[in-house]
C-alpha cells in the first residue's frame, strides 16, 4: 500500500481534531448514563447544536458566542427529553429516538439560510514554546481551544465521578434510584441536571463539526457521530479515561479513511483474507482469557474460517484494487460495530438503574 503521501504528523494532528466532537458528546452522555438515564437523542442534540452554533457564529461573527449558543441549543433539546422522561415518565428509548428525529427536522429547518456560507474562523492557540517542539508541537500543542476543553473535561469528569461528593451522589442515583431517593437525594432533579449537561456537551460537539471540523453547514452533517458517541460510552465501560481512548480510535479511523480517499491509494485484496484469518483467532483468545469453555465445534469453525482467510490472503498476495470512496466511508460505522462486539461482554460496569423509570411512589 502506498502510504508515502500521508504524513504521520498531520495524521495525528487531525486525529485530535476529528476525535473532539465525539469526545465531547460521549463525555456528556457518560454523565447522563452514570445518572441512570439512557438518552438516545445525542445525534439530534448534536445536529441542533451544530446549526445553533453555526447560525449564531455567522450572525455575531464570534465563534465563542456560537459555541455558547450551541451548548444552549443542545441543552434546550435535552430539556425536552428531561420533561418527557422525568416528568411524563415516558420510555427512554422511544423518547431518545423522538429527540433525534425532532432534532434532525429542527436543524434542517433552522439551517435553511445557512447553506454554502463560511463561518468566522476559529483561532488556533499557538502555545509559544511547546508548539515549537518538532513533532509533538504540531500534534499536541497547536490546536484550537475546544480540543483542550475536551481534554480538560475528561480529567474533570474522571475526577468528579471518582473523588467528589457530587460524583458519588450522581453514581448513587444511577446505580439504585430507590435507595438514593430513600437517602433524601432528589433523583429527578439530579437526573435533569445530568441530562442538561449531556445536551450542552452534545451541542458543543455538534458545533465543533460545523464551525471547525468541516467548517460549513450541510443538512444531516453529523452523519451518525451522535450514535458513535453512544457506542463509545459502552466501549468505555462508562469510564471517562476510556472515552478519550475510544474517541482517539474513532478519530484515527475517520482521518485515516479520509486520507486514503484523498490519496487514492491501491488496496491489497489480501487484507480481507488477513481479517478473516485474524478475527476468529482474536475471538478464541478472548474466550480463553475469560476462561470460558470453548466447544470443539467452535474451535473447528474458527480453524476453518481462519484457514480460508489465510488461503485467500495467500492467493491474493500482491493483487491490488483501488479503494472506492463509498466502501471507505463505511469504515467508521463498521469499526463501531466491531468495537461493540469486542466490548459487549463487559456489561457489568453499566449503571444498574440505566434506562429504568423512576417514580417516587413505588
Amino acid at each position, binding site marked *: 500500500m502506498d502510504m508515502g503521501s500521508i504524513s504521520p504528523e498531520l495524521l495525528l494532528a487531525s486525529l485530535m481534531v476529528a476525535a473532539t466532537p465525539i469526545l465531547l458528546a460521549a463525555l456528556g452522555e457518560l454523565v447522563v448514563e452514570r445518572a441512570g438515564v439512557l438518552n438516545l437523542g445525542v445525534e439530534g442534540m448534536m445536529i441542533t447544536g451544530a446549526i445553533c452554533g453555526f447560525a449564531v457564529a455567522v450572525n455575531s461573527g464570534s465563534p465563542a458566542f456560537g459555541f455558547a449558543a450551541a451548548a444552549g441549543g443542545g441543552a434546550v433539546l435535552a430539556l425536552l427529553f428531561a420533561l418527557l422522561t422525568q416528568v411524563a415518565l415516558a420510555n427512554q428509548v422511544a423518547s431518545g429516538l423522538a429527540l433525534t428525529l425532532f432534532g434532525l427536522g429542527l436543524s434542517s429547518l433552522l439551517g435553511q439560510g445557512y447553506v454554502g456560507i463560511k463561518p468566522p474562523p476559529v483561532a488556533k492557540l499557538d502555545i509559544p514554546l511547546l508548539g515549537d517542539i518538532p513533532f509533538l508541537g504540531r500534534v499536541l500543542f497547536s490546536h484550537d481551544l475546544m480540543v483542550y476543553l475536551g481534554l480538560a473535561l475528561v480529567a474533570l469528569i474522571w475526577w468528579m465521578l471518582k473523588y467528589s461528593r457530587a460524583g458519588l451522589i450522581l453514581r448513587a442515583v444511577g446505580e439504585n434510584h430507590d435507595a438514593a431517593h430513600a437517602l433524601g437525594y432528589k433523583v429527578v432533579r439530579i437526573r435533569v441536571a445530568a441530562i442538561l449537561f449531556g445536551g450542552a456537551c452534545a451541542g458543543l460537539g455538534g458545533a465543533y463539526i460545523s464551525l471547525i471540523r468541516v467548517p460549513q453547514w450541510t443538512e444531516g452533517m453529523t452523519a451518525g457521530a451522535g450514535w458513535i458517541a453512544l457506542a463509545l460510552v459502552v466501549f468505555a465501560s462508562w469510564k471517562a479515561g476510556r472515552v478519550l481512548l475510544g474517541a482517539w480510535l474513532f478519530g484515527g479511523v475517520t482521518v485515516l479513511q479520509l486520507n486514503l480517499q484523498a490519496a487514492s491509494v491501491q488496496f491489497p485484496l489480501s487484507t480481507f483474507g488477513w481479517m478473516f484469518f485474524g478475527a476468529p483467532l482474536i475471538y478464541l483468545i478472548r474466550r480463553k482469557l475469560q476462561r470460558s469453555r470453548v466447544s470443539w465445534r467452535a474451535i473447528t469453525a474458527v480453524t476453518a474460517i481462519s484457514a480460508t482467510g489465510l488461503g485467500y490472503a495467500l492467493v491474493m498476495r500482491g493483487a491490488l484494487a483501488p479503494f472506492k470512496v463509498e466502501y471507505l466511508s*463505511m469504515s467508521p460505522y463498521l469499526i463501531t460495530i466491531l468495537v461493540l462486539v469486542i466490548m459487549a461482554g463487559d456489561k457489568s460496569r453499566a449503571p444498574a438503574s440505566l434506562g429504568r423509570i423512576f417514580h417516587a411512589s413505588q
Partner: protein
Amino acid sequence: MLKLEKRPQPSRLWTWVTPLLAVVITMVAGGALFAALGKDPVEAIATIFWQPLFGEFAFYYRPQLLIKGAPLILIAIGLSLGFRAGIWNIGAEGQYIVGALTGAGVGLAFYPTESVLIFPLMVLAGALGGWVWAMIPAVLKLRFGTNEILVSLMLVYVAEQLLAAMALGPMKNPEGMGFPGSRNLRQYESAHNAELITGTGMHWGVVAAFIAVIFAYVLLTRHSLGYHIRLTGQAPRAARFAGVRPARLVLVCLGTAGALAGLAGMFEVSGPAGQVSIDFNVGYGFTAIIVAFLGRLHPLGILLAGLLMALTYIGGEIAQSNMGLPAAAIQLFQGMLLFFLLAVDVLTNYRIRFMSREAV
C-alpha cells in the same frame, strides 16, 4: 399540587384517546410553527390534512396515500413486533435499502429477459436482503450481547454507502450516459411493480401491507408466538419462567422486521421510485418508528397511523409547492407528533391527582 398515581393497568380508554390527542396537539403546535414561519397556520394545516383528501386535485393525491402509506405500514408492522417485546430495531432504513438493492439486483440481472417468474423472484430477494441485514444485529446480540439499537443504526449508514456504491458502480445503467442510477425498472415489464388497478395507487406493495396487517393481527391475538411477544414486553421475568426463549424472539422479531422492510424497499424501487439511485431512501424507515408508536404497536392502529403519516407527506408536498412551506417543516412536524404522543402517554399509565401538599 399535581401528583401522578400509577394505574394498576394501562387505561384502555386513554390508550386509544392519546394518539388522537397527540395529533390535535401537534396540529396546534404545528400551526404555531407555521405561523412563526410567516404562513397562515389554518391554511397550512388545511393544506396538509384536507387538500390531499377532499381538495380540488384529490383524484391525483388519493392514490398517493396508498403509495406513500404502504412502505410505512409494512415497515411499522415489522417494527411493532420487536418494540412490543423490547427489541429495538431502529435500523429499518438500512434493511429497506438493502431489500431494494437485492430486489432490484435480481431484476437487473435478468434484463432484458421477460418472464412472469422474475417479479416473484425479486420479491423473495428483497425480503431475503432485508432479513439478512436485520440478522446481523440479531446474531451479534445473541452471540456477543451487543446492543441491537446501535448495531442496527450503524448498519443504516453502511447501507447508505452501499446504495451509493451500487448506484455509481455495479448497478449503474450502462445506457445511462454516465449518470448515476440504475436502469428504470418501470420500463422493464417483468420487473415493474405496476399499478394493479389504474388510478388507485394499488400496487403489490399495498397488497403486501394489508396482508402484513392481517397477519400481524392474527399473530398477536391468536397465536402463541404473539402471546410470547406480548408477554415478554410486559413482564420479561414472567416470560422467562413461562418458558419463552428470548433468543428465538430476537431472531423472529428482528427477522420479520427486516424482511418486511426489505419488501417495502423492493416494492418501492420496482414501482414508485423505479430505479436504484443515490437518494433513493427518503427516511421511511425512521418515520415508520413514529407510525408504530402512533398506532400503539397494534396492527390496526398502525394501518391508520401509516395512512395519516402518508397524508402529512403528501400534504407537506402540496404545502411546499403552494405555500412555500419548507420541506424541513414537515419533517419537524412529524417529529413533534412522536414527542407529543410520548408526553400525553403519561395519561395512559398514570392518573393525575390534584391534592394538597402533605408530608412525604
